[in-house]
């Protein structure tokens, strides 16, 4: 054990931290400041645009505040977790490794004096930061617009009611959703030349996961996120499948479970990147 501690102490952590920060700076810029990310902005802010239209043109009555709270919860539960964050993360995280292989520029990183694990984790962090910035800011905007239209009643709900707790929970869901899906898609993009079919399988798995045995439910990002939702919206019709009530799990267990799942996926990704070969001709 002491040998392991000594080995860890001897590692150039400061250098790795500097390198990771520099990769982060480069990658966040590439993730967010490009026209190719436009569709991810669209995914993040399309509900915001709809809420804005309602904010500008609808009359809001106090008795609909509860309805709007449910609507916001449904947007998070059915749109962001199932579609927006899912496909946004697919776009962001599959670009990090596979996208660079398609553009034939990944070798530039692999020829830098950076450990591949540091490269992978820094790229993952850059994807997570980019996704959280996009979807987190969209979530805050959605929340602000939803309650701003109620004036004093909305203010009361947010600052003296359950509002702040709810936005905190939603932001937590966004952060965990981005890192959970991000880790999965980063790995899939290293395993498959085209990760989209595999991502569709994941989407299907996430949809049917609530009716799976308890053990299998632990291999799902959405199932953990569901336990962190401040308001559970009962689904109707096809949406009922997405909102099946499973055994109750406390928030911190759900958080730790998702972080553990993410860590396992990232650890496997680190193993894979060590033997990753540059063969652009097969891309």
């Amino acid at each position, binding site marked *: 054990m002491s040998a392991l501690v000594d080995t860890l102490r001897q590692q150039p952590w400061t250098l790795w931290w500097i*390198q990771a920060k520099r*990769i982060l700076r480069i990658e966040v810029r590439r993730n967010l400041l490009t026209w190719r990310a436009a569709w991810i902005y669209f995914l993040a802010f399309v509900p915001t645009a709809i809420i804005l239209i309602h904010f500008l043109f609808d009359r809001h009555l106090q008795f609909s505040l509860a309805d709007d709270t449910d609507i916001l919860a449904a947007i998070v539960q059915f749109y962001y977790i199932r579609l927006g964050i899912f496909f946004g993360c697919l776009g962001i995280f599959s670009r990090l490794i596979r996208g660079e292989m398609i553009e034939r520029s990944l070798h530039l990183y*692999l*020829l*830098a004096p*950076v450990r591949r694990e540091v490269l992978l984790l820094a790229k993952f962090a850059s994807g997570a930061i980019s996704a959280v910035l996009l979807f987190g800011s969209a979530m805050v905007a959605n929340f602000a617009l939803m309650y701003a239209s109620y004036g004093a009643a909305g203010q009361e709900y947010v600052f003296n009611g359950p509002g702040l707790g709810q936005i905190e929970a939603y932001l937590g869901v966004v952060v965990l959703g981005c890192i959970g899906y991000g880790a999965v898609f980063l790995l899939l993009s290293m395993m498959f030349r085209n990760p989209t079919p595999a991502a569709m399988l994941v989407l299907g798995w996430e949809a049917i996961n609530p009716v799976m045995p308890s053990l299998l439910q632990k291999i799902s990002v959405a199932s953990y996120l569901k336990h962190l939702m401040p308001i559970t919206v009962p689904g109707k019709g096809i949406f009922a499948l997405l909102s099946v009530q499973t055994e109750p799990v406390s928030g911190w267990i759900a958080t730790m479970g998702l972080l553990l799942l993410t860590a396992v996926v990232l650890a496997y990704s680190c193993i894979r990147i060590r*033997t990753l070969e*540059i*063969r652009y001709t097969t891309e």
Partner: protein
Amino acid sequence: MTTNDLILFEDVSKFYGEVLGVNRVSLSLPPGVTTLVGPNGSGKSTLMNLMTGLVQPSSGRISVLGMTPGDPNAFFREVGYCTQFDSFPRGLTGWEFVFDSLLLHGMSGMDAHRLASEALARLGLTDAAYRKIAGYSKGMRQKVRLAQAVAHHPRVLVLDEPLNGLDPMARAESLALFEELSRQGMHLVISSHILDEVDRISDRVVLITGGYLVAQGDIHAVRREVRDKPMQVLIRCDRPELLASRMFTLNHCVEARLHADGGGVFLRTTDIDEFYRLLNGIATEGLVNIEAVAPADDDTQAIYQYLIGSEGGAS
């Protein structure tokens, strides 16, 4: 010379599935310029990619100055690789491309700034540095890749077709740069199909075809090893016809051809040592006034044709 001064391939093979990349290659490359020569798909780029860890060997061991790419922090401080991939991250300027790569070494912004400026100036890209690479000509893109590969002052420089896309002036400048780096004690491993130009600065050649090593070493030594092809020598003299007939009388030469300007003759011999001995004798007799003697087919191009049997072409 210890392993810490050499690039070593020990019985290295690489298979891409069922396709052979290179097979059982053993090499020991000291400092200086080594040229990899072979036709398209012969395994030159595979050797370079193996050397730098972009692909992993199926078997065998590779070390560069005693290091392996498994320790990238140490390895890539000493190794620069200018690949043949003509692609860059989107939207970058030449300056950002070189500067960002230097920052990944962990050096300070000031040091990275100094080295990036130096490398871009060395390749004549100072004026174009702040333009987007997407707007560069092919030659400029080649140069900026070269600038990025040399910017951190590596001890080993691997260059895959570094003269591609360069105009004659830029080629001459690049070759001068390679010569200068070689004089400084660096290892340069170059693949190029512009054999006559690379030949001028090359200390040794590695001939490879179909993934197999055909020959390696000093170019003149390799030529001497090709015994089934008589060596050709150009002799500049005042009476080339007389010299040729004398050599045939001595029953030594197998072929003679007058130089186009009439001021010399190409003679082919199967025994170069005996040939020079006889030539000395003829010169001593005073029948012919010999001005210059030079081997005419111990360059890379000729050896390539003898051993690999086609025009030099590589990628």
